[in-house]
């Protein structure tokens, strides 16, 4: 494995030694060779399949198979069916709510870990504490809320035991509330990580300079720290939003079958072998996600920031 991993670097090393003779082309070629495997895999396994379902979304179909055609019926169905539009609306609503909550939690926790925790060892332990539940299967972590929030669950028993209420609270489980809780539980770490990475790169002397110049704590936050952590905020937002938009089973499990997400509705179509409408749904979802990510990437040039 090592030998394979090293091969490209040996190439680059050799290329650098010969740079006096013909340095321009070889160095470029080395970079190309180094990204070639990645590019090949992503083209074959990501770009081409995406094109394939773009093509299939225009196909005709019946109970036995799909037939090449150029029909817009599948798309028309999406935009005229009230139930499909409702599913899109509810997924977008969840994405917005979860994004707001994870951004608030993620930023404040990352800020606490980077700026307030001064002992590096304790900081690593705190980070690990945040990360460890992430290693448990997302399915099990979602299911874990059921004995916690259920009518006879731990939370209700505690609340009733303390005398706050005599009836078990039934809105806790199999509701929009429990869906949001499960999402926040699953995805806050995706916000903490990138934001903490950005915050840790901020030069402390900038903060001190602002303080010396008489800036208040809020001014420092608004004019120094938040602008400098834009990259992390954008990256974390991208990760959280795309996870919620592409969610498959959290809504299904935690809403108790009452509502569906775009992807779980789509998977029902796939199981029924209705590939063209599923593909059309997929394309619409991809366009929505691409627009969201595109907006976030416009706010901040993630690539330039990452390479800095």
């Amino acid at each position: 494995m090592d030998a394979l991993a090293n091969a490209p670097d040996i190439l680059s090393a050799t290329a650098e030694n010969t740079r006096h003779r013909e340095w321009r082309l070889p160095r470029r070629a080395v970079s190309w060779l180094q990204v070639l495997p990645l590019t090949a895999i992503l083209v074959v396994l990501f770009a081409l399949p995406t094109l394939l379902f773009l093509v299939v979304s225009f196909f005709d179909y019946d109970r036995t198979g799909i037939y090449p055609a150029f029909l817009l019926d599948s798309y028309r169905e999406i935009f005229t069916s009230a139930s499909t539009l409702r599913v899109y609306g509810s997924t977008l609503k969840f994405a917005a709510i979860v994004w707001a909550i994870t951004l608030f939690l993620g930023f404040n926790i990352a800020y606490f870990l980077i700026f307030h925790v001064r002992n590096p060892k304790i900081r690593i332990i705190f980070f690990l504490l945040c990360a460890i539940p992430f290693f448990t299967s997302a399915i099990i972590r979602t299911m874990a809320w059921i004995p916690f929030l259920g009518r006879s669950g731990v939370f209700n028993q505690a609340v009733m035991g303390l005398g706050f209420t005599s009836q078990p609270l039934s809105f806790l489980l199999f509701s929009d509330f429990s869906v949001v809780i499960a999402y926040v539980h699953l995805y806050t770490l995706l916000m903490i990580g990138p934001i903490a990475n950005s915050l840790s790169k901020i030069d402390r002397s900038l903060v001190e300079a602002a303080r010396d110049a008489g800036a208040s704590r809020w001014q420092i936050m608004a004019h120094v720290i938040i602008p400098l952590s834009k990259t992390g905020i954008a990256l974390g937002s991208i990760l959280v939003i795309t996870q919620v938009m592409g969610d498959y089973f959290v809504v299904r499990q935690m809403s108790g079958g009452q509502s569906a997400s775009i992807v779980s509705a789509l998977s029902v179509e796939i199981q029924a072998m209705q590939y063209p409408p599923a593909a059309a749904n997929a394309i619409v979802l991809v366009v929505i996600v691409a627009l969201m990510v595109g907006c976030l990437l416009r706010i901040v040039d993630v690539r330039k920031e990452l390479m800095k």
Partner: protein
Amino acid sequence: MARVPVAENPIDARPWTFYALGFLFTLYLLFLYGPMLVIYALSFQGANGGVTFPIVEPSLEWFRDVWRPGQMANIPAAFWRSVTLAGVVSLVTVVISVAAGLAYRRPFPGAAIVFYLAVSSLVMPSLLVGFGIGLGFQFFGLQPDLFTSALGAQLTWTLPFGLLTMFAVINRFNRSWEEAATDLGASPLQRLRYVTLPILLPGILGVALSAFTLSYDEYARTTLTIGARNTLPLEIYALISSQTTPMLFALGTLTTAVSFLLIAVALFVVLRMQRRREWTSRI
């Protein structure tokens, strides 16, 4: 809000925000671990107990149940399949994303295209990747299987993650260390062996570990590309759609215990490497 007396005592003065955020962090940890603790406890449920409290006659029954091939699911077989697949994914991801990461140390034509290809692959709703690959396999009349379509579907997820991690790793890498090695007469191979790789190693371990975890836990990309032999998450999903038993919780407890162990080992290795480096640099 009083100004912190910076000049006198910049270290010890804790602003009120420290306590507010510390409180928030504590609440978050409670939120994070609350339901987890419940499932850890419930995994010791007795044979006749259900998936909620109270615990009837605590036992290790459900841990034994995990290892018993059942009618609905064969957890041990699925577990080994998942571990093997995750191992292969992790290996391939390390090799390919380290190579690609090294390419990005200098500008090259097409760098932006490859980068956005990777980002698109990362943000693509997971099930759709599997859907596309599954369609492609059907199109060519191929049978989906563990080490073909499923492996491929997972790589579209772990490779971009690996690439982004490598960016962070390489950012912290100072090229003058390599130049110094060359100036001191190191051959390219020696430079790689004794300078570049040792410095990048913790980052590479990070890539390997995260690729392993992402693959081990992957569900949505795999479900339409797996073929006949399920991985562990798929097997778990099949279980919960039929009936939930405390066995699921026992599995969660085991997973957490194993992750703790893995993290401890990784931490130990990294710390030891650092100590050895400090030691050699002192000489």
